[in-house]
């Protein structure tokens, strides 16, 4: 026995120690569970008092928590090592999906593996930042031109496959997840602005390649009253729901827009409109603060990350989460065109919940596997 060590009294094990041992970040866990629980209440109302739907969502949440805990156990080094393999697998599945995937609402997004039916694009949401972060980890930073070129290729390939499904919203998120990693890697501002400008210039070209329904969404976004009973109906009804909610809302379960079926997709993509209607501006702002807290915690974890991979991955995941929130709320309140992005942790739906929680599991892994560095 070392006498120097022996002099230290062994401290009582605390709760935080316990969670640290279990690789759980308490802040993140509490925030996520708080948001998800509030989400269950909202869902109960938005679904028209459907206990079954709430139970199903709670089940999915449970599954998500389990996935999160599992993901938290694996050390970040494992993720780094497996990143490119994971990326490759996800890309392969996307390709398979395009070839033999299930059709739903005119888009081929689902892959049926018999026991499991899921969207490979959700896997890519995790694989993309992981792969870019792992790639950049091995390169000199700020990235040189060649590195950026390779990164672009890594981003573009799956994005193209997802666009082909077609799923503009997810493709956008996947592109952003990769781009965030590049951004945090220190890609030069000059290039960032250059590319943004180039994309803006290429927008007309992109426009010509869009599907009719995608164009319709953009047109509707620009002028929702253009066709209030058709394409603009979603956004018009959603604005009515939110606007009529006022400062304090109509009260939980008292939202007429959702309960009388005027608000379409009220339990999925447009659930934020139910929040705005039933708990008003104050409730909506509170929720946004909670989301911001999650993002902030993610960025803190990123800053504390111990190597380039951890930092880039954690920061990308956090910002992607923010992007989810921003796009969904922006769409529901009429600031952005309607793209199929759910409100994270609250919208009813399976795959996105699990992939989100997996992402948070990775964040926790990064945070709880820190080693004391010798200076």
């Amino acid at each position, binding site marked *: 026995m070392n006498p120097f060590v022996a002099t230290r009294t062994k401290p009582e094990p605390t709760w935080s120690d316990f969670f640290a041992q279990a690789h759980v970040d308490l802040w993140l866990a509490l925030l996520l569970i708080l948001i998800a629980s509030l989400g269950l209440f909202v869902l109960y109302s938005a679904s028209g008092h459907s206990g079954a739907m709430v139970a199903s969502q709670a089940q999915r949440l449970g599954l998500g928590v389990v996935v999160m805990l599992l993901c938290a156990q694996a050390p970040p080094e494992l993720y780094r090592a497996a990143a490119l393999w994971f990326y490759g697998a996800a890309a392969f599945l996307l390709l398979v999906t395009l070839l033999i995937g299930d059709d739903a609402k005119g888009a081929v997004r689902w892959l049926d593996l018999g026991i499991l039916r899921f969207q490979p694009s959700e896997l890519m949401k995790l694989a993309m930042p992981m792969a870019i972060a792992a790639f950049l980890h091995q390169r000199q930073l700020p990235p040189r031109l060649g590195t950026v070129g390779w990164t672009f290729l890594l981003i573009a390939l799956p994005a193209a496959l997802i666009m082909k499904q077609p799923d503009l919203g997810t493709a956008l998120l996947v592109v952003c997840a990769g781009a965030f990693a590049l951004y945090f890697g220190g890609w030069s501002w000059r290039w960032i602005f250059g590319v943004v400008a180039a994309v803006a210039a290429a927008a007309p070209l992109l426009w010509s390649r869009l599907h009719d329904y995608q164009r319709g969404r953009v047109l509707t976004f620009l002028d929702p009253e253009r066709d209030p009973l058709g394409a603009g109906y979603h956004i018009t009804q959603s604005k009515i729901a939110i606007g009529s909610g006022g400062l304090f809302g109509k009260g939980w379960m008292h939202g*007429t827009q959702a309960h009388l079926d*005027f608000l379409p997709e009220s339990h999925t993509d447009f659930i934020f409109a139910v929040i705005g209607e039933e708990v008003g501006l104050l409730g909506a702002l509170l929720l946004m603060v909670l989301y911001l807290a999650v993002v*902030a915690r993610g960025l803190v974890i990123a800053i504390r990350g111990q190597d380039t991979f951890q930092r880039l991955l954690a920061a990308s995941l956090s910002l992607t989460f923010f992007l989810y929130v921003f796009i969904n709320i922006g769409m529901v309140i009429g600031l952005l065109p309607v793209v199929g992005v759910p409100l994270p942790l609250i919208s009813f739906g399976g795959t996105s919940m699990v992939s989100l929680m997996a992402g948070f599991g990775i964040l926790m892994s990064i945070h709880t596997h820190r080693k004391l560095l010798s200076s």
Partner: protein
Amino acid sequence: MSSYDAIKNLHEEKQTFLARVVVGTTVCMLLILTLASRLVHLQVLQHDYFSVRSDENRMRLQVIPPVRGLIYDRHGTLLAQNAPSFVLEIVPEKVPDLEDTLRRLTPLIHLTEKDFTRFRERLRKTPKYRGVPLKPNLSPEEVANYQINRYDFPGVDIRPELTRHYLLGASASHVIGYIGGITEDDLAQVDEKAYRGTNYIGKTGVEKSHEDELHGMLGTMIVETNAAGRPLRELDYRRGAPGRDVYLTLDADLQLTAEQALGERNGAVVAIAPKTGEILALVSKPGFDPHLFVEGIDSITYKALNDDSTRPLFNRALQGQYSPGSTIKPFMALAGLDSGAISAEHGELCTGEFTLPGSDRKYRCWQRKGHGWMNLDRAVAQSCDVYFYQTALSLGIDRIHGFLSQFGLGRSTGLDLPGEKAGLLPSREWKRRVRRENWYPGETLNIGIGQGYFLTTPLQLAQMTARMAMRGQGFRPHIIHAVGDPENNVVTAVPPEPLPAIGLHDPQLWQRAIDAMEQVTHSPGGTAFRIGRDAAYRMAGKTGTVQVAGLSQDEAVAPKQEDLPEHLRDHALFIAFAPTDDPQIAVAVLAEHSGSGSAAAAPIARKVMDAFLVPPPSPPAEVVAQ
């Protein structure tokens, strides 16, 4: 540790990363602030607007249109009722493909070309959100055919409705009028809100003039609906009230009698109760089937009715303006007596013609060979023109106009039916104003025998007869006897409205004029002796024959009526009241192109008066009333 670590500047890389996090955080905060400000805009600044939009979404005003009031005659006989029926209706804005829908409906519902024409015409005039009737009065088979296939026809529906049914049909079509589909023009005339859910509105007759009473009050219900429009609960209910029942002064039996008495002739019969001004019968022939208009008339049928040379849509009793002819003579006599221009015993020699002093133009008596010596009684009884040329000349146009206007001539009587014409009682002032000419004495002569510019409606003739019967007293003619509230069975009588009495210098003169009129029907030389001879009561009357074809100065003898084409034959007129000493009924009869008043018009008046005054063997009124 990776092999690249060696060439990585970890410190600088971390600094760059931190900077990027700071910039990223700032951008996130800005974006969140954008969202928040948008939320404030929607939920605070535009809150009121969106609250209204939200309420508009979920609240539907359901209207409960009132049931139209019924129309009864004076004895409670039903004249207009609401019969249940089914109508096939199309709401244009809810039909995806109208042409296709119409094509597919054809085998299910018996649709004629007229139905389509009518539908398209109404489609144009109706707002897109209102139902347009395609076919009324569906048969049970048609209802069943539709019900089986109804899921194939969005925007098409069968609506039970109450169809207006007029029990007297064409016989009273001009009095009662009809209701028809509301047009945009109609809506502009009424409070549009009160007519939500109402599809019909009174177009003519009592249906139009008493629309306010008959229509009733709209009930409303505000319901909360879901997005599919299904009502979920009632938020507000305002009770309406059914239309009030209208009791007419009309006697249905008398109306039918008068209509039948006219026979094949076109013309008008107006019967008034002198003591109240109640219209007992008001016939204009030919009539028309009011139901054509209730169902919504198609343009072909309408054009046919409108272009018909006998003008069935024209209400002769109120709108037909005819010279009063000799029927004016008792009144002219009264004017002469009252002004002192003549006396009852004053004699005048009728040679069959009359010339104005200082002129050689001949004014002829209808009796070419002359009546010989005439006094007032004989002049009225035999309708001597020469006697009244002289009377009119003595009176002068100003005194004639002044006196006769007291009887309501030259202006509408104020009957509570739409469209009444005023006629024309000419005066010096009128001629100057309208014709920009002076009045000539020869024109006064023509006025003296009820010709010339002089125009009256049959209603005015009946009313002036009633005033004579009442010795100058009188009431405004009216068609509404009472208004009943079907909810509490309270019937409110409409009181007769007395008119200012016509004062004579000597009230005895009334009897003088009436005696003369009695001679017309009860003295062997009277022009209407044939109807007074065997009457069960005493009556006072006057015939009139109005020339339609102008008589040229050179024609010594008028052509025989039988030789003239029908549209040039004389109009036959007759006015009368009875019983003479207790007047119960005053009648004016106009029979167009029927020859003389004594032969054609007087018997019609007799039938009407008989029907009213002579009690029938067994009174059917009570039976009919229920």
